[in-house]
Each structure stands twice: as structure tokens, then as C-alpha cells.
């Protein structure tokens, strides 16, 4: 345990000096504030409180930003050590590869969690100060916060796996960005394209819900939109939220971090320094 904590402390210090902490905090704070202020206009017509609308916007923000931040922090984790030449020495120490990974995960996840909580805290304060009824949106916001952190853990784990597989930071960075683009942006577009071509056939009725649950980013979006009742204010894939039970998307967002970390562990074990 002491080794894990020491690894986490050291990684946190490195992230602090590399400005990753500052970048994550500023990005989450600025985007959350902008969305809260910009999203306050249409509330009157929809008959929901100000914070619930903001939660729908923040969900979309988290789907893009949290995976991106997680991948940016994690792609260097193993490939960077390998390239700097610090990995062989580390692996001769009485510390297991699992402990190294968990230590890094704790540090990076702590940074993400602080950034998410800061952003959401700002959103809540601004909303509640402008609309006292906005406190009814707090449970939805809290759900969004912890599920964002789980989403971050998933992408951190996947980032470590990519880092271990590519062994060079440049390669790992390329893979990380491709993965982000694929899962967060192109996946939904591809699904929509298939649905249009399918025209209400087998794919739309049978395979589509599983395709959504299989992607951690989509499962995250579904869970937050279906649980918050804010789905009415969301468009696109979010419209599918009502068709899939919340427990299924919850299962997906709980399972993904574990699967990603196991994947990272398996990839790291294969690295020969």
C-alpha cells in the first residue's frame, strides 16, 4: 500500500509540474461556467429548473472533455517511462506492475475528480444563485459527477493499455486521439448512418441498444439523460435514452472501468523493458 501511495504522490507531483492539473481544472471550470450561463436562456419555456437543463449540457461536455483529459494524462504513463529509460530501473524494484498502474490511476483520477467537482460545483453555485428552485437538480448533478469520474477511470485505463501497447509516446498519443475520435465522435455518427440505412429493421430494434451500451461514452450519456429526466431537452442519440433501462447503462458504466484496468494490466505485463 505504501508503494502505491508513494507512486500516486510522485505521479501527482509530476502532473502538477507538467501543468496537467492546471489544464484540467481550468478547462472544466471554464466550460462548465459557459454552459451554465449560456444554458439559462431557454429554461422558462421548458418548465424545468435551471440546474436540470445545465446538467443536460454538462453531460454533453463530460462526454467529450473527460475522455479527452483522461487520455491526455494517461498516454505517456508507460510509453513515456519506456522512452525516458526509467522503466527498467522501476521494474527491478520490489513493486509489482499492478501497484505501479494503480498508483498512477489514483493520481490521475484524483486530478480528474477535482476538475469535475470544481466545474460542477461552479455550475451548481451559479444556477442556484439565479434560481432557488435549481436545488431540485442537485441529485442529477451529483449523479453526473460520479459517473463522470467513472468515465474518466475507463479512459485512463484504456489510455494506459494503449501506452503499454505502443511503447512510444508519439505512437501512444496518436492511438489515444484516434480512440477518442472513434468512440466519442464517429461511433454515434456511424450508428446513425446504419440506422438510416437499416430503415427500422433488425439492427435498429435488436442490435442498436447493445451497440450503445458497449461504448462507455454512450452508456454514460444514456444513464445521465434517462436518470435525470432531462432527455426531453437532448437531441440525437440522447433521444434513445428512454428506450434502454437505466440499470443497463449503469451496469455498463460500472463494468467499463474494471475492464479497462484489467486490459491495461494485461498490456503492461507484456512490456519487456
Amino acid at each position: 500500500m505504501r508503494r502505491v501511495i508513494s507512486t500516486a504522490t510522485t505521479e501527482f507531483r509530476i502532473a502538477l509540474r507538467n501543468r496537467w492539473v492546471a489544464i484540467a481544472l481550468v478547462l472544466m471550470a471554464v466550460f462548465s461556467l459557459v454552459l451554465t450561463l449560456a444554458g439559462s436562456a431557454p429554461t422558462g419555456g421548458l418548465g424545468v429548473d435551471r440546474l436540470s437543463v445545465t446538467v443536460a449540457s454538462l453531460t454533453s461536455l463530460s462526454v467529450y472533455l473527460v475522455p479527452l483529459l483522461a487520455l491526455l494524462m494517461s498516454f505517456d504513463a508507460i510509453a513515456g517511462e519506456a522512452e525516458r529509460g526509467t522503466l527498467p530501473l522501476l521494474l527491478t524494484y520490489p513493486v509489482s506492475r499492478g501497484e505501479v498502474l494503480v498508483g498512477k490511476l489514483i493520481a490521475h483520477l484524483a486530478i480528474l475528480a477535482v476538475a469535475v467537482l470544481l466545474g460542477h460545483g461552479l455550475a451548481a453555485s451559479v444556477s442556484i444563485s439565479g434560481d432557488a428552485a435549481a436545488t431540485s437538480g442537485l441529485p442529477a448533478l451529483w449523479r453526473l459527477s460520479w459517473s463522470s469520474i467513472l468515465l474518466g477511470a475507463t479512459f485512463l485505463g484504456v489510455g494506459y493499455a494503449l501506452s503499454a501497447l505502443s511503447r512510444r509516446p508519439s505512437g501512444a498519443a496518436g492511438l489515444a486521439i484516434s480512440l477518442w475520435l472513434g468512440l466519442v465522435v464517429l461511433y454515434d455518427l456511424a450508428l446513425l448512418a446504419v440506422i438510416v440505412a437499416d430503415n427500422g429493421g433488425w439492427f435498429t430494434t435488436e442490435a442498436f441498444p447493445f451497440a450503445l451500451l458497449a461504448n462507455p461514452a454512450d452508456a454514460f450519456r444514456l444513464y445521465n439523460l434517462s436518470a435525470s429526466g432531462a432527455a426531453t431537452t437532448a437531441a440525437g442519440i440522447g433521444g434513445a435514452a428512454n428506450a434502454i433501462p437505466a440499470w443497463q447503462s449503469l451496469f455498463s458504466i460500472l463494468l467499463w472501468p474494471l475492464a479497462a484496468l484489467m486490459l491495461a494490466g494485461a498490456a503492461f505485463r507484456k512490456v519487456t523493458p
Partner: protein
Amino acid sequence: MTSTLTITHLTKRFQGVEALTDVSLSVAPGERVALLGHNGAGKSTMMKVILGLIPATSGDVTVCDAAPGSPAARRQVAYLPENAAFHPALTGEEQVRHYLRLRGEDARQALPLLARVGLHDAARRRIGTYSKGMRQRVGLAQALIGHPRLLVLDEPTSGLDPVSRREFYALLDELAAEGASILLSSHALTEVEARTDRILVLSKGRLAASGTLVDLRREADLPVVLHVTARNGYASDIAEALPGAIRVGAALHLTCPQSDKLAVLGRITGLGDKVADLEVLPPSLEDIYSHFSRGTV
């Protein structure tokens, strides 16, 4: 007391290419062993096998009565990689504190350890600002953590100036006196300065020689070179008396086997006044090393 390190018939193959072939050796507690060889001779590969970073293809390796890379072995073995590298954003002290905690030691030892390798003043500066020699010292400091029974040092003196190199060997003497075994690698025999108990020469993955410097010198049996300087005008007389000598102006260069050395010296002194000066050059450390590492045995 048993050996700290025992290797029997170790072979390591990378995709069909043999990096190490049938290497056997052992290192006793308190023994300082130098591993010599060219780039690509298999030194680093052998060290990585000993550390458990890569598996052996065949053969047995026992490190501190445990399998290489096992938790028990890792607790007792320290490593200094070639070109020791650390995260540039950390200070020397932070890095060593982290390594101390990974070994379950008190992190407050960091400053005394850094002081021991002469880095006390730079301990709170980031490693990114260090010179190569300073990084090497951080590497040495981390290798001293927790009284290891075996130190595996990959080209530890590269990047060190001659004074630092002396200090480094003095430190090794202290460790060996406390019973630690030391296996260090180097490109050249001159680098280890005969400050080790035993020398192993690896050539193309095979153990070409093993023994003390005296043993190696005797085994190599390299010729002795004699430089004879003639007094004015006598150079031709001397050349006649010493068949096989090569004339270079007023001097004559002569080589002879070790066993003939005294006889040849006798003949030269017999020339009396005709000889102005005589120099005897025994085979240098470089010559002995080249002899073994070229695989001429």
C-alpha cells in the same frame, strides 16, 4: 557462505540470434567482478537476465537464493542502468525519497544518501537541470538503498570524470567490505582500473576469459615491446646484433615473447656503450582486453 549469484549454462536467444551462449559464472559475497566486452557483446543482456527483466532461453540463474525477478530477489538486488534516467520534473531528493519508499525504507535517508554521492547541494533542484554525471550519481544513490546483497551496475563510470571515478570505486570498496557482491560492466579494462577482484570478458555472447588481472596477463601471453635507442652511429651495429628489430631513425623497435624477455635483455646489455637508452613496454591493459574480446582464444 553460498554464492550471491550463480549462473550455469545460460543461453539467451532473441528471434534466433544468440546474445548469450552457454555462460557459467558465480559471484561470491563481497566480491567485486568486472564484466568487460564491446557494445553488443551481451553485457546488458546478461544483466537484464540477472535482474529478471528478460527471461533466459535456457540455463539456470540463482540470485540471492531466489529466482531472478522474484520479489525476494528484487528486495536484495540493486541496479544502476546504463545512462541512468529519471523524470526531469522531479528533484533529486523527491526521486530518491520515492525509491526509498518503494523499498520500504525511511524516506528521510534521501538527503544523507545524496550527500554520500556528492549531490547534497543539488538535491532540491530538478533532475532536468542535472548534468549526465549528476544523473549517474542519483543512479548510484538509489543503488545504495537498503544494503543490497548484489549490486548490478551497467557502465557505472561512463560520464564520470577521473576524480569522481576514484570516489566511486572507493564507495564500492566500502560496500564490498560490508559483504555486498558487485557486478559492474565496462567497455574497457582501463576503465575498471584494476579495482576489481575478478575480470570476466564477454565476446560475442561467450565468456572469453575469467580471472584476476595477473591471470589474464599471463594467459594472454602477449609479446613484450622493447625500444632501444642507439648512441650516435651505432644503430646499424645494434640492428645486426638484434635480428628482427625494426629501425626507426636512431631507435630500434623489437618485440619478443614473454619467455624470451630476459634473454633479449641480456643481449642488449651485452652491447654495452652502443646503447644510449632502453625502454621495456609490457602489454597494456587495452592490448590484453583486445586479445580476449576479439575472440582470438
